[in-house]
């Protein structure tokens, strides 16, 4: 790994994320209150350090405890779903891009069809029919529906890597199919995959909270989305019980924002053409500079959990464009 210049943006994003992670992992132990236990009346105001730090919600449960456990649940769901989606997208994209031919055609057609149908629709259709929505089932459903944009991008990159000389060398020296994929193709995709993973996790977290708001959230756990769901359904906004909806809102926004910031700063690391820096030199004037690079910018995330696929890669030719 060459030495990388991380911008301040990266450190800010990383710091926020680490704080959130710490809160999610050790928070429940620190708070030491069962989120389902009744600790007070309906919508009690925040009072003192302890379980009532953020008051109670509509069932008299500690908002603080729910926040800690809820953050943990949201992150777990996001990580599982993000991992599943990234793995599927990677495998489909690499196999399609590398193999070519009939397999490529089939996989690409399937991917393109699924791309046109919004993820939220498929997920709602599936979730509506589940009678037990556990964290893992939900994560699974989200994971197996969010991979198409990644598969398409990975396929495009794989087809361009495939035509490079070192692949020919590997093939001529008798390397096996999977060995080539792992050792000669994957390293080139790694930078993109890292960014894509960050986006997938972020998207999954937001998708889960969208589902929860619609009433399709996990049935046996509390998540940030579930907290918001109860907050809206029981009119906490109207009655001004801000402690019931502000914490999950802030937490959700922070998670989404820091992940997005992380992805955007990683994008600048891997894509020097996007950098806008200052040249440090003796003179007074400080213009911006750009260095030409190979690929375009990475995908953008929308805040409802739908990822907008990588923009400049338009598959105008069969071989992915070369």
């Amino acid at each position, binding site marked *: 790994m060459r030495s990388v*210049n991380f911008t301040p943006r990266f450190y800010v994003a990383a710091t926020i994320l680490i704080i959130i992670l710490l809160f999610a992992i050790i928070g429940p132990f620190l708070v030491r209150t069962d989120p389902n236990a009744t600790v007070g009346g309906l919508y009690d105001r925040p009072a003192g350090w302890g379980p009532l730090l953020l008051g109670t919600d509509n069932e008299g449960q500690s908002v603080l405890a729910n926040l800690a456990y809820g953050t943990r649940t949201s992150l777990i769901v996001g990580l599982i779903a993000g991992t599943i989606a990234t793995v599927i997208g990677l495998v489909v994209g690499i196999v399609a891009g590398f193999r070519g031919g009939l397999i490529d055609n089939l996989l690409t057609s399937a991917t393109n069809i699924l791309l046109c149908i919004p993820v939220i629709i498929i997920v709602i259709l599936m979730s509506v029919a589940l009678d037990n929505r556990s964290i893992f089932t939900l994560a699974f459903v989200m994971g197996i529906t969010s991979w198409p944009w990644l598969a398409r991008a990975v396929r495009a990159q794989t087809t361009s890597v495939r035509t490079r000389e070192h692949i020919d060398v590997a093939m*001529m020296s008798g*390397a*096996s199919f999977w060995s080539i994929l792992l050792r000669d193709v994957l390293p080139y995709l790694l930078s993109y995959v890292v960014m894509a993973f960050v986006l997938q996790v972020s998207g999954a977290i937001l998708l889960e909270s969208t589902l929860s708001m619609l009433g399709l959230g996990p049935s046996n756990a509390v998540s940030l989305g579930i907290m918001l769901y109860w907050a809206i359904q029981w009119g906490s906004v109207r009655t001004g019980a801000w402690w019931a909806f502000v914490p999950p809102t802030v937490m959700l926004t922070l998670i989404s924002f820091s992940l997005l910031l992380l992805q955007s700063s990683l994008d600048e690391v891997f894509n020097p053409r996007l950098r806008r820096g200052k040249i*440090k*030199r003796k003179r007074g004037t400080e213009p911006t*500079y750009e260095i030409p690079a190979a690929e375009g910018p990475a995908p953008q995330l929308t805040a409802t959990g739908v990822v907008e696929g990588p923009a400049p890669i338009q598959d105008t030719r069969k071989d992915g464009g070369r």
Partner: protein
Amino acid sequence: MPNLLDAANIRGVYYTPAGEEVVGVDNVSIQMAEGEVLGLAGESGSGKSTLGSIISLTAREPLVVEHGTLTIDGDAQDLSQMDKIPRTWRGSVVSMLPQGAMNSVSPTMKIRDLVVDVMRAHDGKVKKDEALDRARDRLVNLGLPPRALDAYPHQLSGGMKQRVVTIISTLLNPRLLIADEPTSALDVSSQKALIEMLLEMLDKEIMSGVIFVTHDLPVLRTVATRIAVMYQGKVVESGPTATIVDDPEHPYTRALLSSVLTPEPKYAKIRIEGMRAFDRESFKAPEVKH
């Protein structure tokens, strides 16, 4: 008579993101007379492209011109103040022919649109038809099909695109054309066509001088009247083509010339026997019999 080009004391430096300096052109001065083709030769990183971009006034960050003056027909400009140089100098006094015309024209516009924009940028009152007529005449004059004007860049072949871009670069009859590796991306017959076109244009006085930047020495031999050899940002030797090629003095020039590959006759005739066609689909290494 005064020189066409007088570039004096040019120093161009690249600044890395960490703030370090990399000198691209180290205090170089070159002169050219009317009607000359000056070949800038050297290996990669010698500074020839950098010098070319500075003289054609297209140097951009992170390349910074620390000092230098450019005098064309007696008109001098301070190269360290790139922003103050009149915009119209570019294209009508000095003009660049970029390396690899692949992406030199925006992919979403037709060639004719660029032609009109270029003409209008230098004379706001030019009518569209006038501009297109002029371009069409140029194309026909130099043996290119006029329908190229109505094409999108992706519809032209590599060689055709390079020649069309050459026409665009010289549309305003610049005094000096700086061609940066114009033949490097072309096959041999396209190279020949391009070189012949450049010489014909010079003959017709469309431009008065060409700086031909390349690493390809054999090409320079056919097109350049004078050659300047660059190494590590400095001009190590310059002189008439015949002198440089037949009787180089500087050890680097000698090394450069001797590195041109010409296979001896006996090796040129040997063929490798028995190599089977390579099947990528089956991922097996081919057998090679000796």
